[in-house]
């Protein structure tokens, strides 16, 4: 496709690559949080835990949720391990993530 300069044009190449991230879009939303098991996934940062707890307190006050399930992915700079996410998803109905720097 790309060849050298032609008589009347100066041809230069694109240095970028298409980004490879593929997303699945938004997860399906539940009609209500009543009776739901709420997952709270923190990113190992200092303020992630109090932030998630504060959000959970508001939710628990407004809805009759079933339980809270808290885990820490353990490293803010890397994605959670697939096994950890698999176990997490088995324990919860909805999940809230926080990056509390």
């Amino acid at each position, binding site marked *: *496709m*790309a*060849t*050298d*300069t*032609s008589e009347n*044009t*100066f*041809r*230069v*190449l*694109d*240095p*970028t*690559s298409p*980004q*490879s*991230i593929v997303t699945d879009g938004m997860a399906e939303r539940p009609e209500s949080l009543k009776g739901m098991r709420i997952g709270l996934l923190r990113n190992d940062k*200092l303020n992630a835990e109090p932030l998630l707890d504060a959000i959970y307190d508001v939710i628990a006050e407004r809805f009759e949720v079933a339980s809270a399930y808290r885990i820490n992915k353990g*490293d*803010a*700079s*890397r*994605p959670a391990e697939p096994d950890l996410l698999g176990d997490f998803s088995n324990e919860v109905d909805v999940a809230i993530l926080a990056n509390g*720097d």
Partner: protein
Amino acid sequence: MTPRLTSDYLELPGPLEAIEAYFEKSWSDGLPVVPPTPKAVTAMLAAANLAPDVILGIEPVKGAVITAEKAAINAVMAGCKPEYMPVVAAAVEAITKPEFNLHGITVSTMGAAIMLIVNGPITKQLEINSGVSTFGPGYRANATIGRAIRLIVMNVLGTRSNDGLDKATLGHPGKYTWCVAENDQALPENWSPLHVTRGIDESDSSVTVVSGLSATQFGEHEADTPEGILDAFAQRLYPMGPSVKQVILIICPEHAAHFTTAGWKKEQVGQYLFENACKPTSEWIAMGFPSGAQKDSNAELTVENDDEPISVLDSPESAIPIVVGGDGGAWSAVIPLWSLGSRSKVVTRPIITKE
């Protein structure tokens, strides 16, 4: 047969218009780039005997692929000579190793740069500066090889600060370019150069990548013993907190000479600092490390163990000394790693030349 390049291209009236177009598209680091013509990119690939579609590395978190063609385009833009391409290729391989944590170090608010340390015969062939003003300007190889890696991160991985993923609070000038050679002429007697310490044959060349934060330079003009010089180093290590996992010690030639005089081995540097650069827990807490001051990553410091001395280094091997700089002046430096080395490790890869 000329290898087939597959990148999209722009057609413009001339080089000056190309330079402006690359600014407009946020494809530059803020400085003018050399327009990457197919001819120049082909020459870059040929110098390293690389086909355009060879994969030099895959960034592990996003799965972004860095091909030889994209690396070569950015190397041309940076101003590299074709013969620099083997160093660029080895550096791409190094920064995409999972233990380097490229995604983390380039998007984080901590704002690390990628420091390249080149060792071996290629440093002379390419004239990579290791002497006077090592970290300063004036040498094409230093300036353009380091810049090529930054442009690859910006353009191929999309990690830009103006409209991309780079969220550094401060950053530092090393994010434009940061490439040096070790000054092997100034190494203390019987010290191995960095690449040999890290498992590469002395006759081979290598590149070592470091997620470097801003360097702290210091003068120590009176001490003439290894102990005195390393005590001065310790004072610059303490602000990092205890149990630093990896840190680069930049030893200038004038300081290095005192290690020769005293007959010190290279291994003694880390051993001395590990054993002597210690503070009791209470002092670490007083310095502001109540939760960061940890003997290990799972144990917070408490007043119950406040008399226990904790070293600034996690182990003797945590100190990684290199010798760089000009002959005159007793100025050395420490370079902390992103996350103090806990989540980004120094990586060394051999440089494969065409022969």
